[in-house]
């Protein structure tokens, strides 16, 4: 009886795996090791906080999610900030998709000017730090073109992420075999019809996984707009701390909220991927 999934010559048992390997792979030992590691981290954080005399006040956290007062039910700062973060991210993502698609099509157009413009844009954006880009939009372009901090944040996030998104779109489009182009052309389709009915529907399954990664990345990098005080999740968290000095509890909570949102997103998209895989 072997515990590896292959069988040897009939009548000859396979050699067993080394003892140490079996030992560490067994369920109780794995669980124990995992528990010990997590426990050590938790204990370290706890004693560290004890050592600096930190006064844990977890009981004060729920009021930042919701309050029930005489006036009835009220959402707290954290859900309000979360909604702002999601609105900001969704708007920025849609805009980034639009810019990304234009840049990708420019690059795929085969026109020398088109690819030159696209490559120039990509290299520029990819080599400027996100924070600097944000300052450029808020302190330089904002006053020049007269837009506020909220618009500046959306533009910054959209432009920054459109660079990678355009590469994802381009790779997805290139992954469709050239025979599909030729077949579409040979029945008289125009370039835009070919993209719309033949190429893009087939590219989606190549694009979904990396695009999900990019959305997660965008939600996380949206936290940076707190430096220009746009009222989203991170900014509201910082405001609560400046009122209450509960930095440990609040930052832990904020981190968990981001984690929950991005995990839910990833799980949702993996369902979508399965659906598209079945349809093919």
């Amino acid at each position, binding site marked *: 009886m072997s515990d590896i999934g292959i069988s040897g010559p009939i009548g000859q048992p396979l050699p067993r795996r080394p003892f140490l390997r079996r030992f560490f792979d067994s369920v109780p030992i794995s669980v124990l090791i995992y528990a010990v590691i997590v426990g050590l981290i938790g204990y370290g954080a706890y004693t560290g906080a004890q050592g600096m005399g930190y006064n844990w006040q977890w009981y004060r956290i729920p009021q930042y999610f919701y309050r029930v007062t005489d006036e009835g039910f009220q959402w707290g700062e954290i859900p309000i900030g979360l909604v702002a973060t999601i609105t900001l991210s969704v708007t920025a993502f849609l805009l980034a998709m639009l810019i990304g698609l234009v840049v990708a099509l420019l690059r795929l157009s085969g026109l020398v000017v088109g690819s030159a413009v696209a490559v120039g844009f990509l290299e520029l954006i990819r080599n400027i730090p996100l924070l600097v880009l944000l300052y450029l939009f808020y302190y330089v372009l904002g006053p020049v073109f007269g837009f506020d901090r909220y618009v500046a944040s959306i533009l910054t996030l959209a432009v920054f992420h459109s660079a990678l998104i355009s590469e994802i779109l381009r790779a997805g489009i290139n992954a469709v075999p050239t025979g*599909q182009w030729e077949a579409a*052309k040979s*029945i*008289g389709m*125009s370039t835009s019809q070919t993209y719309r009915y033949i190429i893009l529907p087939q590219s989606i399954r190549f694009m979904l996984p990396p695009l999900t990664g990019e959305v997660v990345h965008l939600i996380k990098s949206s936290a940076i707009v707190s430096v220009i005080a746009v009222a989203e999740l991170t900014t509201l968290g910082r405001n609560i701390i400046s009122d209450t000095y509960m930095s440990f509890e609040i930052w832990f909570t904020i981190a968990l909220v981001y984690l929950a949102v991005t995990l839910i997103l990833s799980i949702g998209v993996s369902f979508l991927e399965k659906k598209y895989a079945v349809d*093919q």
Partner: protein
Amino acid sequence: MTQSKPMIEVTNLDKYYGKFQALKNVSLTVDQGEKVVICGPSGSGKSTLIRCFNGLEWHSSGRLVIDGIEVYEGAKEIRELRQEVGMVFQQFNLFPHLTVLENLTIGPMKVRNIDRAQAEETARKYLERVHIPEQADKYPAQLSGGQQQRVAIARSLCMETRIMLFDEPTSALDPEMINEVLDVMVELAQSGMTMVVVTHEMGFARKVADKMVFMEAGQIVEVSPPDKFFTNPSSERCRLFLDQILEH
């Protein structure tokens, strides 16, 4: 048929890929309803030539007139021309995300603006003609290679084409599926379609060809009717080639 203009008129065609010359001074005419079979060793320019006929490749110099339309890079009429000229590829190139029926209707509906009901009726008629009416709602991946190639033929026919180009239509097929595709092509030939076929299926060529063309190194070496071509070709190179492929 009274004196009509040729369907395809090729005059002194040259085609370069960078410095490599793929077609050298090729001239050929194909009349309406004529069946032309092109053969020759690989790399001889057969595929390049017929890919020029519907603008998948552009010739570098010379003149190419298809069904009265002059073909050149940037020609405005190229999309109209492509609707007249159907092409069947070696690798079928069906649209994998669409069902068989949708593969057949998407061209008529989107390019010719025909309504769905009528497009589906036409599609079913041609599926009947390629002997697979029962596969209409399947996806290409669920069909055998021979069935896929017959769907590809039907897809071209649905555009009501006047010329059909075949680029090695049976080369990617398992041997037992070759005949089902050739049978459909023979029937199509008998219906009077103008056909240009690149193939090494000499049995098919004997049966349907009006004109045999032998190409080598980008040049047309021999053009002759099939009885002369198979029994007494005028060029030595063509004789050698035929010996090689007819040996078995």
